[in-house]
């Protein structure tokens, strides 16, 4: 087959193409780096409105909804934790997603938590969160989880107890509304802002949500609540100590030595509690636990 030996185009291609692809991949990484810093305004900023996109998507709405949902998660994931993050596009992205697919519950729930959560973990826009969830309820009036989220927003973020109670009550009336929602409605109306109510809400959220981001967030809040309880317990012990020794304990070690405590208590992250000069217990400065504010 002597004629085959002269097949230069084939050999050139086989040798050159892998090298070229390596060059292309390297270049692409460069391009991505250039256009992707978090505070660089890119095309996403110029997000089309959900209504327009719905018209253009020519029947492939749910596919595009999935696309934008993916982008929303990515957007959040890239920004959370970075120092100068802003979440300006979070609402527009969620808006587009839910316009394209009004039944995407996960999107409403995600928005409820992370739109209302203050920086740096969220957009800090409770008003938008409420708007989003209300829209979700309008489109999915039988989904109890959305009422629960609305209740959470009114109760925790806005301290609007009457509206919170109403949300829980409405949720309890849905076809699958769990019994606790009725309880919650009554409790909120009656007790308003209390740690126990808050714990109920977060525990419920933690147990029912499938979204790993939301789950993690609820766990964090519950840890903070636990820390608060530990601290108030320690405060009581601290007063007892003062009655016994005429001064506040310097640390939890003193309390243990005085046999008021069996051992050195640690917060949910494993850091020992400290006691201030005023005798009040507080978290160790290095502890990552966040106390919720009432």
């Amino acid at each position, binding site marked *: *087959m*002597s*004629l*085959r030996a*002269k097949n230069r185009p084939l050999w050139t291609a086989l040798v050159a193409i892998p090298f070229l692809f390596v060059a292309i991949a390297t270049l692409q990484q460069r391009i991505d780096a250039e256009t992707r810093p978090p505070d660089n305004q890119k095309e996403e900023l110029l997000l089309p409105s959900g209504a327009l996109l719905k018209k253009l998507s020519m029947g492939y709405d749910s596919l595009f909804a999935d696309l934008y949902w993916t982008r929303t998660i990515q957007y959040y994931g890239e920004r959370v934790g970075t120092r100068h993050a802003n979440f300006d596009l979070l609402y527009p992205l969620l808006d587009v997603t839910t316009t394209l697919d009004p039944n995407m519950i996960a999107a409403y729930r995600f928005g409820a938590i992370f739109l209302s959560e203050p920086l740096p973990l969220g957009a800090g826009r409770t008003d938008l969160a409420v708007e989003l969830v209300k829209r979700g309820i309008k489109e999915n009036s039988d989904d109890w989880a959305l009422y629960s989220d609305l209740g959470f927003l009114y109760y925790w973020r806005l301290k609007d107890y009457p509206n919170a109670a109403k949300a829980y009550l409405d949720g309890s009336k849905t076809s699958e509304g769990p019994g606790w929602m009725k309880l919650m409605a009554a409790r909120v109306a009656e007790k308003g802002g209390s740690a126990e109510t808050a714990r109920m809400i977060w525990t419920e959220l933690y147990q029912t949500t499938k979204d790993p981001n939301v789950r993690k967030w609820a766990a964090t809040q519950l840890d903070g609540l636990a820390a608060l309880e530990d601290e108030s317990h320690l405060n009581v012990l601290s007063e007892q100590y003062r009655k016994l020794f005429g001064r506040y304990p310097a640390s939890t070690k003193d309390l243990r030595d005085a046999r008021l405590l069996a051992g050195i208590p640690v917060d949910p992250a494993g850091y020992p509690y400290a006691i201030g000069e005023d005798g009040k217990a507080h978290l160790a400065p290095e502890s990552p636990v966040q106390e919720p504010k009432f």
Partner: protein
Amino acid sequence: MSSPAIEILGLTKDYPVGFWRKRMRRSLDNLTLQVEEGEVFGFLGPNGAGKTTTLKLLMGLIFPTSGTARVFGRSIDDVAMRRDIGYLPEQPYFYDYLTARELLDYYARFSGLGAADRRARVEKNLERVGLAAVGKVQLRKFSKGMLQRVGIAQAILHDPKVLFLDEPMSGLDPVGRREVRDIILDLKRQGRTVFFSTHILSDAEMLCDRVAVLHSGKLQGMGAPNEIVSIELLGMEILFEAAAGRHLPAALLERATQTGARYRIEVPEADLYATLDQLKSSAARILSVTPVRPTLEDYFFRLVKGGPAPSYAVEVGAR
């Protein structure tokens, strides 16, 4: 010792056939032949013999399974070699949105001719193939015969040393075929080498210095027409007419074929005068007496006997 114009060595081509393309069909089997410079070489064979396959292999349109070929010592892989050759494909087709003039000019550019040179050659060759009047007409309006002429024009335009023509006479009326024959003879006079395939044997007989016969992909025979065909006398052919009102001998009529008023009979040489006497006594009118010799056609049929029935254009009165 200069290299032959065309050298084909063991050229073989297999095609995968069958649904899974597993089996191989050998369309050309180990072809070896040489054509000397200045020869007009006829490549004969029935349809499907592998003539077009051979030409496509030589032009680099398809690739051989094995074997090589050279033109004036340069391998057919060598693209530069193609400057010195011209090719007319079977049933040529050209860009129909171009005019004849534009097409020839386009092809001429590949031969590296300057603008003025191209213009001159295009005009000359349009004239030569009888298309000077329609140079401005788009090729989509051309008939098959006209396209054939354009094809010839583009093959000879750059004065190549070797011409490869695949069925150059096809699609042409007798006038056209005479013109092509003249062109080929003219090329020969200029000392060029012409390698053409055809299944019209009389053309081959008339034009070729040598012929090769291909059948089922194999070379069956090769040589100069007057050498390979024996000159033995096969018999005598008599053409005659019956006189008005007179009957012809029944024995003769049995062996004769009749076309209208004309009769034809073939008799062995020894019986010639006896037959003529019989006809004379019936007052038949003798039209002609001609010796019958074997033709290329007979040689041909002998070689391809047993193969698929070939279709032949048999020329009347072309001997």
